[in-house]
């Protein structure tokens, strides 16, 4: 915590899972307008260095708070809980993850690839959204174990969606 402010304080928003993204962006742009290094070109080196640190902190805070998953992890950390590197997931969750991964592999071979991929992405995103609702609930009652498990599940799904987006079978024609 640099400059004695946590990320929520920097953006002056309540320390909670739900954050008004529009307000966050507006605040981010206002802070940048005030502090960006381009505004400090004529300053002393000491001030430049200090300013650079502060703007880096603003950037990191914005990146963290504007991403649902990163914000959840950060919020959990503020309450004194850390995620484990190799968490033990329930059998049910593990099986579901294996199944989803196999689905994606099959889609890569699908003759109707584009359509199948879009459908897969949509379903996974829907699943992710419902987990977010659960996460909000878990945060509101402060159940840290439930929060952790929901974060692990979301980490997996986010990664999976990313892989689906990057999969390179897409023959997008140019005419």
């Amino acid at each position, binding site marked *: 915590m640099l400059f004695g402010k946590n990320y929520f304080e920097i953006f002056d928003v309540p320390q909670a899972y739900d954050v008004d993204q529009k307000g966050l962006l507006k605040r981010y*742009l206002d802070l940048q307008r005030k502090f960006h290094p381009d505004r400090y070109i004529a300053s002393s080196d000491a001030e430049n260095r200090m300013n650079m640190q502060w703007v880096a902190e603003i*950037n990191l805070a914005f990146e963290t708070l504007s991403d649902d998953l990163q914000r959840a992890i950060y919020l959990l950390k503020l309450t004194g809980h850390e995620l484990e590197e190799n968490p033990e997931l329930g059998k049910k969750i593990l099986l579901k993850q294996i199944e989803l991964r196999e689905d994606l592999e099959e889609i890569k071979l699908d003759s109707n690839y584009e359509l199948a991929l879009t459908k897969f992405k949509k379903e996974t995103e829907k699943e992710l959204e419902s987990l977010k609702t659960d996460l909000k609930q878990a945060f509101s009652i402060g159940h840290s174990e439930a929060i952790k498990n929901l974060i692990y599940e979301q980490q997996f799904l986010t990664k999976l969606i990313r892989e689906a987006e990057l999969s390179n079978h897409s023959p997008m024609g140019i005419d």
Partner: protein
Amino acid sequence: MALLQITEPGLPREPHSRKLAIGIDLGTTNSIVAGTREGKPFALPDLNGNCLVPSVVNYSETSVLVGQAALQKSTNDASNTITSVKRLMGRALTDPVIREGKLPYEFLNESETVPRIKTARGLVTPTEVSSEIIKTLLERATATFEDEVDGAVITVPAHFDDSQRQATKDAAKLAGLDVLRLINEPTAAALAYGLDSGQEGSVVVYDLGGGTFDVSLLRMERGLFRVLATGGDVSLGGDDFDSAICEWVIDSFEIEDTISSDERRAVLLEARIAKEKLVDSEFEDLRFNLQGVDWQIRLTRDILEGLCEPLVKNTLDICKRVVNDAKMQMKDIDNVVLVGGSTRSLMVRKAAESFFEIKPLFDIDPEKVVAIGAAIQADLLIGNNPDSEVLLLDVLPLSLGLEMMGGLSEKILTRNTPIPANQMREFTTQKDGQTSMKIHVVQGERDMASDNRSLAEFDLKGIPPLVAGAARIQVMFEVDADGLLLVSASEVTSSVKARIEVKPTYGLTEKEITQMLASSFEMAEKDASARMLAEARVEAARVVEALESALEKDAHILNDEEAESLKLGLEKLKAISTGGDYREIKAGIDLLGKASEEFAALRMDMAINQALAGQKITEIERDL
């Protein structure tokens, strides 16, 4: 045109209050310098009206030629004529670009990291070659404006890594040019189109040059330019179109096995000419005399498009990835800007139009647009438009990471993170009593460290001998607004802090640059120290001015004693800088800098608290 000159009462308008700042597009093939006159940016031509300076430098025993004059030497004096030096910037001698690039120059073959080219004028590094080009551009600006240049914005490709950016900045420093900021070429192009003028929107900049392809997605909001994502391919460009045509010719004649390399070059040249003509015509007849036989073949626009399609499709795939990276969709894109000579091709324009479903912008010359954008940004940064709302927020082009056990690369700062950025990671020791740790910094997206670009390697020594896992080693990554990285590492459990700061391995050290400046060919020993002295004085004046204005505003946050000691320091530096020893002035600057750190911190805190308080007031206003 301004009809009235409004001057604040009591403040006479100084004729020289405007500062001169320029924009430089340091290209692989050509370079351009642009400036601003009466608020209008323009590329600076030579006496013949040419704005393009070929990025070519020729060294002979008696002279250094740059541009057109050097280009004429490239065929008969190839080993002393350096072309496309941009490709060598920030590269190690062992880099494939240098090893396998079939370059006509001879490199000094020592186990050094920085490549040194043997020329008739002695050994030169790519940074020095580049600085010769910058000097020429600087001279053009000085001659055009009949004034000294105060600072410059230099553009670099969005995909340039840390050492390439550092090398570019060093080249400017060697040329005696103060770099206000390095900005990405595509961003400069968007600035040139003034897409910031009030409106909101998302812009894709599609930059297809001779040898490289870059694409950036920018978001404009109330004068703020945010680079959301960038991507590209360092070995994809218009030259590949020429090669594709060349291969097609060779295949059609079935002479693959017998063609000589000279003949191949001739075919390639014809291919390029035909490609350029096909912008206006439907077909071109290519004629060759190969192996004593006359050949003729008709290249139609359809055939050309067929040949180039896979290449253009590659560029569009990259565009798709960048849009994905920015978590956006095609329909969110409001504008497409075309940059680079290769976007003159009709096919590229059509492909971009049908892919994004928008008519792309290309009314500013695609070869000058980057320099013009850089000039606009330079004019802004130097302070000529204090009321401007325009602000450029950039991102990290490539992920920065550390090599972990097993050779894997762990990303510390990921690609597209807004800069400046800081990130700290904590590691521990693997063995009992371990007193040193290897820190290897890499840049790139690949999983294995060895597949990425190696930036720096150093040992953190002096770790207290503890049981494995007890030491806490903090590695700090700091990226500044130019995208340049500083890495430091320290051990925190002990009171003894081992700490080291590194600069990229393949750049030049501060000492080398100073030496080069001092021993620069044109400068006699005396001139060198005179320039050092002049530079030190300018720097001292800047420090004095900044601190005086800070004290004037905020001296009240210091106690009398602190304020008095800073004022004393100020007077002392002023006195020193009238003297003739630049080393003494530099030491004075450092001393005052250290003394004012606490004051700077207090001011920063105050500004932050004011900003937070200001937020609360606007919120109250909104709620009312």
